[in-house]
């Protein structure tokens, strides 16, 4: 218990000074505090903010590990493809290899480290200036950010975006729990609109593609959504999409692991099943509408929208970041709707709008990020009307009773 005692002593030493929150934060992060309540407790719960955040991170870790292996795998697959060799995936043969892990770890772990160091530094600075305790809010955001960016995002870019996201997206509203937009998505959106060449196209999804651009052995890897938007055929079948052996942002590819993570979040009651379910419903409805349009023959194969519109509705759930966004970001308890009825509406519209943006907006091949941001904007409005509706209904009931 040497470290704990040392930290405790430091905490006592800096008590009342400006730096106190910083030491308190390190102490609380690593250990349970020594202090206990002196009077009788009224409510006993174990799921404080720290545990909530850790649960989500636990659900994210499989995606991170898979993302590391997939980064290496896609790198080798793209090099082979440039030589004209098609790669057939086999889990033990060429996926879970030490080589893949090393390549992936060298590219993914720096993203994780930069995201945490920069983000937590901003949090610490704000806590010290404003004189409150450091809040655990950045723990999940810091893990989400590296998982939703393309693998070769330059680290300084990520650092700039993280500072923007944490300061403008969260701290100006008063810190954790007060923000309007999901901070991870704010960071992603900032990157997307500020450095578009690094966030889309066929050069950013595979490690090394940007560096080798223009060379004779140049490699490339297009996401499925990207090729569909250009009406090209897709070389992956649905099992690849489901297990995640496809190019894409670091952690978004494996629908299976995201599904497991989602079930874990539902089981531990951290994530709202209402939002997840209704969002999937919304996506299915929109996908069926588009499939219907294609079946009715209202749209010809020459149309720009044909590739994405004719994609089977269930395929939309597997490709791109839809599953990841639905499970980990739409369910963010701060920015989502707070009321149960509101959650159904909120989730449904996220699914509906994200497929709509995917199909109709050639500028953005991926719609989930923007759909969630848009619904974050409207979540307070939805809540307001749900609450007002409840108030009105109860007033009516009250009048009936008194009359």
């Amino acid at each position, binding site marked *: 218990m040497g470290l704990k005692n040392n930290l405790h002593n430091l905490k006592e030493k800096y008590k009342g000074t400006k730096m106190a929150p910083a030491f308190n934060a390190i102490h609380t992060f690593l250990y349970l505090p020594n202090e206990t309540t002196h009077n009788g407790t009224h409510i006993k719960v174990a799921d404080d903010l720290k545990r909530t955040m850790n649960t989500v991170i636990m659900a994210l870790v499989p995606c991170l590990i898979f993302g590391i292996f997939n980064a290496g795998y896609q790198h080798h697959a793209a090099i082979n493809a440039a030589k004209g060799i098609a790669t057939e995936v086999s889990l033990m043969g060429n996926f879970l290899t030490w080589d893949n892990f090393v390549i992936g770890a060298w590219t993914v772990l720096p993203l994780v480290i930069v995201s945490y160091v920069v983000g937590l530094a901003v949090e610490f600075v704000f806590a010290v200036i404003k004189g409150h305790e450091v809040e655990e809010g950045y723990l999940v955001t810091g893990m989400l950010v590296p998982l939703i960016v393309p693998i070769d995002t330059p680290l300084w870019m990520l650092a700039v975006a993280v500072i923007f996201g944490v300061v403008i997206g969260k701290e100006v*509203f008063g810190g954790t729990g007060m923000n309007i937009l999901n901070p991870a998505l704010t960071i992603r959106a900032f990157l997307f609109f500020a450095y578009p060449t690094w966030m889309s196209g066929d050069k950013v999804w595979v490690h090394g593609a940007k560096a080798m651009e223009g060379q004779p052995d140049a490699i490339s890897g297009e996401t499925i959504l990207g090729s569909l938007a250009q009406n090209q055929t897709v070389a992956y079948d649905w099992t690849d999409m489901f297990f995640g052996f496809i190019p894409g942002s670091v952690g978004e590819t494996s629908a299976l692991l995201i599904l497991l993570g989602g079930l874990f979040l539902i089981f531990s009651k951290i994530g709202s099943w209402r939002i997840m379910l209704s969002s999937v419903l919304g996506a299915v409805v929109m996908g069926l509408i588009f499939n219907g349009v294609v079946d009715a023959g209202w749209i010809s194969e020459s149309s720009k929208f044909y590739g994405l519109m004719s994609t089977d509705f269930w395929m939309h759930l597997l490709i791109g970041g839809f599953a990841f966004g639905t499970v980990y970001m739409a369910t963010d308890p701060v920015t989502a709707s707070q009321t149960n009825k509101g959650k159904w509406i909120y989730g449904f519209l996220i699914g509906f709008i994200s497929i709509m943006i995917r199909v109709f*907006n050639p500028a953005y091949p991926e719609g989930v990020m*923007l759909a969630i941001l848009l619904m974050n*904007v409207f979540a307070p409005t939805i809540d307001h009307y749900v609450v007002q509706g409840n108030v009105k209904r109860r007033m009516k009931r009250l009048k009936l009773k008194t009359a």
Partner: protein
Amino acid sequence: MIEHIELFFKSIFIDNMVFAVFLGMCSYLAVSKKVATAVGLGAAVIFVLAITVPLNWLLDQYLLQPGALKWLGAEYADYDLSFLSFIMFIATIATMVQLVEIVVEKFSPSLYNSLGIFLPLIAVNCAILGGSLFMQAREIETLGLALNYGVSSGIGWFLAILAIAAIREKIRYSNVPAPLRGLGITFIITGLMGIGFLSFGGMLTGGDEEEAPKEGEPTSQVETIETETETVVELANNTKIIE
């Protein structure tokens, strides 16, 4: 029919009055403290836009456009009164706002009181004049489309003020840093909401026929700026010569 639907969604989401062209900001920022008031003002803006845009369309078609006076006789065919558009549009708008004010005062005194000075100020709300001027600049073809454009850009403005009012009610108890309280945080929220609305930017472009490339607009702007600077330089030279 299809162009009606397209114009409707385009003017609500893609060319949103607040988030795409940043018009009507003064009342948007000032009257968005409570949802109920915001709804009232938003409805008033929809109403005024729905009346003024078609009216101004008629004015534009039969009075102001170059050659609009043809119906008076052949000798008037080459008259161009478009320099009068601003004053005519404003006159229509002011009249209509007076009408709305009388109606609101009569039927909903509480809303009239909560809107306060901002109801007569709709007359100088740039979203309203902007609606008419965009209608003129985009050469909207029929009266029906003009009505559609008025209503739908009004709905876009209504959605924007509704969303920000709900957000401001939500963050009322947030610990916002003191220098940012009030308008500062509202501006930041508006910017973040603009990012949310960017999801619709560029939507519906493409499709079956290729649209004209949009690169022309920025370059032409640059050119005008250049010519302006040239004239300024010329003027400066002139004054020097006079000295």
